[in-house]
């Protein structure tokens, strides 16, 4: 029997088979929060493959053809669209909570990591994506984004407004802090966009013999060897450690015992790592072009915002390493800032369902 209370909510996102990342965690987190609040919620995931470029057009059309307005004549009260092209699915009561647009058509166009611009029809497909976003995103009743960074990109490229709506990282209540030990922690998927290589370069330029602990699964299979070789060439095998993928429990332990957290990605959409560092009361070193983290790290109050160069990053690392009292103070200020921002699922649901 249909439940008499609560709303029937569908969360529309995309599925890249066999790949799990932040977007999946977010969708599941939102779904769980809705169910716990007494609603009926389900995730609808549309498979997505972005190459060759004409496939993107096919899948945009596929999304437009789907009908999620009701099931067996009972209305779906709200559709929450998260990712391109799933947020293009039509629905009379749709809100978008945008994780990101198709970045290769926007901020990553002509970026070395892009591939869309290398196809002869790349430019046409990019045009179609921009037109679809510009015309169809405003059909939603409300447009929210996971961060100010995502809202600013949408404003810059599509002249559309979105309201940033922050949400907590997974297991937010379980983070804790311990006295700082002698290492900086860099937890992240190993990927060129996260710039682990920049940190390795910075290490060869620090005054102190700083130690860095990395964790996270590598996107490419041969990474363990690459990492070892790189460390050896630079002569700091003893100063770096890569743990690979670690459990959530182990990750929280590493945060808690670290001196500070390194997170210098390129134009991150949001970045749970910044928030997790704040929850563990640790200062964060990030870069001026890191995107999302800049919404949370206050320069020289909760961490350091460095230029994205080995030299500037090295200086920031030395500063934390040499002044443990300041590091501790900034860490506590970060925790306070997290509390001030009211980042919780209750707030997210209220906005998405209003």
């Amino acid at each position: 029997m249909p439940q008499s209370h609560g709303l029937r909510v569908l969360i529309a996102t995309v599925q890249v088979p066999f790949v799990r990342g932040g977007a999946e965690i977010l969708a599941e987190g939102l779904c769980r929060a809705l169910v716990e609040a007494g609603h009926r919620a389900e995730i609808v995931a549309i498979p997505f493959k972005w190459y060759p470029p004409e496939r993107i057009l096919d899948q945009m059309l596929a999304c437009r053809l789907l009908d999620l307005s009701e099931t067996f004549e009972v209305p779906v009260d709200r559709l929450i669209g998260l990712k391109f092209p799933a947020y293009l699915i039509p629905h009379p009561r749709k809100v978008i909570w945008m994780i990101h647009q198709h970045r290769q058509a926007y901020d990553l166009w002509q970026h070395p990591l892009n591939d869309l611009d290398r196809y002869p029809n790349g430019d046409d497909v990019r045009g179609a994506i921009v037109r679809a976003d510009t015309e169809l995103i405003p059909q939603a009743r409300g447009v929210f984004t996971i961060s100010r960074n995502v809202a600013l990109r949408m404003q810059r490229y599509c002249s559309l407004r979105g309201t940033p709506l922050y949400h907590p990282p997974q297991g937010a209540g379980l983070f804790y802090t311990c006295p700082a030990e002698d290492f900086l922690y860099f937890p992240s998927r190993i990927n060129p966009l996260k710039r682990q290589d920049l940190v390795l370069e910075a290490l060869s330029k620090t005054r102190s013999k700083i130690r860095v602990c990395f964790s996270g699964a590598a996107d490419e299979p041969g990474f363990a060897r690459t990492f070892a070789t790189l460390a050896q060439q630079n002569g700091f095998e003893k100063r770096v450690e890569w743990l690979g993928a670690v459990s959530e429990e182990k990750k929280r332990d590493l945060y808690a015992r670290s001196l500070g957290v390194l997170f210098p990605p390129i134009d991150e959409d949001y970045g749970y790592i910044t928030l997790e560092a704040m929850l563990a009361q640790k200062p964060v070193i990030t870069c001026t072009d890191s995107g999302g983290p800049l919404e949370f790290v206050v320069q020289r109050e909760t961490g350091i915002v460095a230029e994205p160069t080995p030299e500037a990053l090295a200086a920031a690392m030395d500063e934390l390493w040499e002044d443990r009292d300041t590091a501790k103070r900034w860490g506590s200020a970060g925790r306070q800032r997290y509390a001030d921002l009211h980042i919780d699922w209750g707030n997210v649901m209220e906005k998405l369902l209003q």
Partner: protein
Amino acid sequence: MKILIATSSVPFIRGGAEILANNLRDAIAAAGHEAELVSIPFKHYPPERIADHMLACRLLDLTETCGVRIDRVIALKFPAYLIAHPNKVIWLLHQHRTAYELWDHPRAGDLIHGPDGPVIRDAIRQADRELIPEAKAIFTLSENVSGRLRRFSGIDSEPLYNPPAHAQLFYKGPTGDYLFFPSRITGVKRQWLAIRALAQCRERVRLRFAGEADSPMQQAECDNAVRELKLTDRVEWLGRVSEEQKRDLYANCLGVVFPPVDEDYGYVTLEALLSSKPVITCSDSGGSLEFVVDRQTGLVAQPTPESLAQAMDTLWTDRQRAAVMGEAGRARYEDLKISWENVVEKLLC
């Protein structure tokens, strides 16, 4: 191997197909492969929506993920089995039934009532005829589904049986004094027929139903019939029950009543066999007829209240015989060698 299971589903509705897809995924993983579900949302009305969803499926690309090849797609349901893949195997749960054998069914037929119904029916039939044979191999859920595929689409296939979830947990309890009818409460399962039969029974047969109604209206129709026929003290609606409760209800019943319209397969029959209980089904019930041997492991009645009532009276009055038929059913289940290992081996070969 990297294997995707492609299916379609109606949001907020969980039934046999969803359970089967999950069990298949687990069985493939247990065989040492990587398996994931891809589920395309489906809405079957108004009729033109069906064409939209068929096209949507043809537009999807499951050949690779992040540059890594998908070795096989196992497709289960319409329209998801239309998704193209060079290494696709279909394990057909059913075609879109109201375009086929249920087209003009008085209760189940829906396409027939829309002005575009015939056009959409023909489009579905054409797509099935032309695109199902793209698959490398075609298996079906049952002999019944294979028979329909041959009759309507001229396509040959091999039936491939699968065990119900937690098959090993079913057990036999004492022979009880109620008949058990576990099923989603909806027109094609024919709870209404069982209620009318009950009114015709000579004996004071008791019937317990378990399962959720598809809509409050379906439940209301049943409730009204029970009231009008003055059967309130002989009928019990248990609603949704846990898996454990369900197994207990099977274990302790006298027999199982399962008279659906042309069921594709029917876990209920298998669960009854596993619990060593005789099954009363109907001559037009489809899948259950592949398992129920009349007068040996149960009774096959005509789909009329009178005939069904007679079968119910027979079990009610001859408990000894009911128990013997139940034992024979369990033996029959063993003979059929129904296992996930076998299913996975066939689908991946």
